[in-house]
């Protein structure tokens, strides 16, 4: 098969919208959407600021099965307001995770996938968005005691801000090469610390330091997959089959801090240096 044939036959995950991504991860015909667009849960805050709202506030809550196991998929729509977390979208994710944890306490082993495509908090909703992200983080920590919570960021928005912390709390994290993961975005770093600190026009630098391949190489994510729907689904299914990780990444915070403390911040870090820092720190 030629490269062009492969490209044309590929079932891209990135090109799907949030609802379509959620449906693709669940067993065919099993998906049921909760708090969907026809419930008309528009953001009351965006409308007051003369911004067009979306009927699901940019979050799809999909309940169904994955290889027969009860699963909830929380898909963030990166196209709507940069996938930002507002009061309603955030509450949908946190509420669904809380219900999944309650399911587990009642003997139903519900697992969760979060599709991160987000710049973090929705600035127009300020503290309500931040509070929602805190609730999401608490709910992930609650649920991951019972069944894995798997984060996926496919791109092209990536995963930033408070939601990158939520991604770090997940039992497993799956990225594509196109995805980026970081606390602050490149332009925010450049704006705050100057172009000498970080040049946001250098795409190779951005992906070299925060791209999917680098994050997997440094152990901050678990799998780097192609932009291919069957491969994303198979990877998520394989990680669920592994069960809970022996140790959550967030339980290794002390190790990571020790590794980061040894960095010479006087020089611009190259991607290889960062890999060395993390792999030595983890040893």
């Amino acid at each position, binding site marked *: 098969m030629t490269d062009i044939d492969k490209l044309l036959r590929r079932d891209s995950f990135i090109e799907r919208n949030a609802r379509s991504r959620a449906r693709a991860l669940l067993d065919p015909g099993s998906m049921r959407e909760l708090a969907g667009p026809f419930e008309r849960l528009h953001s009351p805050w965006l409308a007051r600021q003369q*911004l*067009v709202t979306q009927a699901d506030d940019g979050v799809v809550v999909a309940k169904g099965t994955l290889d027969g196991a009860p699963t909830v998929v929380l898909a963030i729509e990166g196209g709507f307001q940069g996938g930002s977390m507002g009061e309603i979208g955030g509450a949908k994710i946190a509420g669904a995770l809380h219900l999944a944890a309650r399911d587990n306490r009642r003997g139903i082993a519900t697992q969760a996938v979060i599709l991160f495509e987000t710049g973090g908090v929705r600035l127009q909703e300020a503290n309500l968005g931040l509070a929602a992200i805190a609730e999401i983080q608490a709910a992930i920590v609650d649920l991951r005691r019972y069944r894995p919570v798997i984060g996926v960021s496919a791109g092209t928005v990536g995963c930033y801000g408070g939601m990158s912390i939520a991604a770090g709390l997940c039992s497993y994290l799956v990225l594509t090469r196109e995805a980026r993961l970081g606390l602050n975005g490149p332009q925010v770093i450049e704006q705050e610390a100057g172009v000498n600190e970080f040049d946001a026009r250098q795409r190779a630098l951005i992906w070299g330091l925060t791209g999917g391949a680098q994050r997997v190489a440094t152990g901050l994510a678990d799998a780097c997959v192609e932009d291919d729907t069957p491969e994303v689904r198979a990877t998520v299914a394989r990680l669920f089959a592994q069960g809970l990780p022996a140790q959550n990444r967030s339980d290794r915070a002390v190790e990571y801090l020790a590794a980061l403390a040894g960095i010479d911040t006087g020089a611009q870090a190259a991607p290889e240096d960062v890999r060395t820092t993390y792999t030595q720190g983890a040893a």
Partner: protein
Amino acid sequence: MEKLNYTFAAGAPAAGRAVTGVVSSGDLEVLLEPGDNGSTTVAVQTSVDGYGHNWTALLERVLGPGTLPAARIEINDNGATPGVVRMRIEQAFEEQGRADNGDRENRA
């Protein structure tokens, strides 16, 4: 932001619901539900002000003949071109009531 409302003659009620598109740059979200027999209503919220005559002309062209099923349509627009608007509306009519509703929505 501007809000516009329309009513058109239509056929029998649509078979079911459909949602197409997202409120991303240059795109729109169309929500379609079965309407009252013989009448289709359209409620538009658009990020671009002052294009009411374009909306009227476009919706008149698609829904004016009154041959499509009766529906309650909500449109949330983020600066889509008329061609994109028309495709999303037609996509919603195509998908309404289909069991695998939206399985391949917005793939391209």
